[in-house]
């Protein structure tokens, strides 16, 4: 990273300079939500950037203390509203572990199909808006056209487009009908050439490459220390994936590769590699959906579990969400309502890295870095 200190020559010696305080305010088209970043900059180069969050705090943890376990699932959806199925899955797996219950195999396979479809939809939004932030409108439109197909599929599966309340403790609320399975197969066949087309449009475009390579480089050790997880961590070269290392919900039956940033363009750990890990993950999700549909077992979609379960114990469980590792720390005391539910959100930690990473960057690079770490403010603030 070059050192952009202002050059001192005969004309500028003796002139007074001040630091400029700019507010990248809560309303901004590129901050992916209501995030306020207070930037102190010396001209164009940033000296300090303080993120300020809490504009979308909706007291998830306080609500969860006064509601039953099944009633908390709609609240879990609304944390990361872009990838709602993954949030529900993490919570329901934690509750099931406390009850000592394993969902039926058909329910597990349906959960995998739905999670991977959700991963595709979430990554499409992330790469589409990243292209929009970098100035290209066509990738955004292409990504949202394909995301629209996924949302329509979800509407056929469970009745809602964005906030599903589908995955419950014990299974899923409604079985897949045969018509829907054919539609999912059609979608998978249609989507792969669309991804290749998207690569042609954005990934190797020279303007995009020059704006995102060598920007916001996070080394492997730095990423672990910051607490990054998911595509942010894999973009820095660390080979970690919960679906492979500690599989849940039947992921050990499916074969897929873990995509790691390899440095095809730029340096491993820069914005381009984090973005490209997301694109590669979409290919792997299609592979998993194919295998899951081909081996979908017969059976029930919801196990024999009481309508208001009463678990006891304390657990911390992590699952792989599109944005990182979402963890739930649940303390249960044997009544119908939990004592404490804490949601550890990966976007919270990714936003905390803004302060140190933005020093020495130009202001336009802040937009590039924010887009590459892929935050959704609903999850940051909960």
């Amino acid at each position, binding site marked *: 990273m070059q050192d952009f200190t202002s050059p001192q020559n005969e004309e500028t010696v003796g002139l007074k300079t001040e630091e400029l305080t700019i507010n990248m305010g809560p309303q901004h088209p590129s901050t992916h939500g209501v995030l306020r970043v207070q930037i102190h900059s010396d001209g164009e180069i940033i000296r300090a950037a303080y993120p300020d969050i809490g504009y979308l705090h909706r007291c998830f943890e306080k609500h969860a203390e006064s*509601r039953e376990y*099944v*009633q*908390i*699932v*709609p*609240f879990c959806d609304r944390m990361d509203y872009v990838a709602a199925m993954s949030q529900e899955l993490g919570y329901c797996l934690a509750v099931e572990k406390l009850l000592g219950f394993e969902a039926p195999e058909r329910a597990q396979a349906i959960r995998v199909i739905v999670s991977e479809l959700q991963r595709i939809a979430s990554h499409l939004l992330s790469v589409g808006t990243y292209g929009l932030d970098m100035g*290209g409108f*066509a990738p955004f439109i*292409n990504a949202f*056209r394909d995301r*629209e*197909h996924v949302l*329509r599929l979800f*509407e*056929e599966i*469970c*009745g*809602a487009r964005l*906030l599903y*309340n589908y995955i419950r403790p014990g299974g899923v*609320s*409604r079985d897949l009908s045969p018509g829907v399975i054919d*539609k999912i197969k*059609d*979608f998978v066949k*249609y989507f792969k050439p*669309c991804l290749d*087309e998207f690569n*042609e*449009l*954005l990934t*190797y*475009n*020279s*303007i995009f*490459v020059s704006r995102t390579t060598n920007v916001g480089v996070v080394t492997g050790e730095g990423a672990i220390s910051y607490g990054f997880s998911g595509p942010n961590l894999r973009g820095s070269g660390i080979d970690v994936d919960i679906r492979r290392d500690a599989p849940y919900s039947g992921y050990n039956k499916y074969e897929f590769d873990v995509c790691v940033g390899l440095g095809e363009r730029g340096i491993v750990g820069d914005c381009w590699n984090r973005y490209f890990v997301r694109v590669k993950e979409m290919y792997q999700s299609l592979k998993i959906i194919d295998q899951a549909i081909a081996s979908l077992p017969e059976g029930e979609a919801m196990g024999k579990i009481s*309508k208001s379960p009463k678990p006891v114990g304390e657990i911390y469980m992590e699952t792989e969400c599109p944005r990182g590792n979402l963890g739930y720390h649940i303390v249960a005391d044997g009544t119908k309502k939990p004592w404490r539910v804490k949601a550890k959100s990966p976007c919270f930690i990714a936003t905390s890295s803004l302060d140190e990473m933005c020093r020495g960057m130009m202001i336009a690079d802040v937009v590039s870095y924010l887009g590459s770490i892929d935050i959704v403010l609903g999850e940051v603030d909960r």
Partner: protein
Amino acid sequence: MSPIREYFQNIYDAVTSTYKGMRVTMRSFMKTNGFRKIRGGYDYGAGPVTISYPEIKDDIPSISRNRLFMHQEGCIACNQCAVVCPVECITIESRKKSEDENPDARTPAEFGSKPVKLKLLRFDIDEALCCFCGLCTEVCPTECIVHTTEYEYSKFDRDNLIYDYLNFKDENPLPKG
């Protein structure tokens, strides 16, 4: 690489990558085989995907969870929906029936023919608070509370969104079902 070679390599990279992107857009532009089929399935990738709402409306699946509707002849005032609602948007008031109020009444056949022991005084749903989770429709024993497919019911005042299902008057009458 020498600077001159790098200079021309940059120009070549810029021109080819921009050409590739424009080629993708041109290909979509040239697909003029009409609007995609809306009914009966998706014809993926067959032309423009924009539909001119509100003249043309997309068909939504019948299980879609939009505005709630309650058939009052099917309600037995069991209070399950109000208890299970995560945001407490349903208000129910009822009292025991007196002797001359037909104590052996049952709900109609399509609602399971269950005995009605309580008289329903008030049943309000605040649709502005409703989170469309579908939990109330799952626990109702007579299935009298259902999600319809109606999504165009905006009002200018938030108080107009508190629907009183005992005296239901709909300003924009669309088929309920």
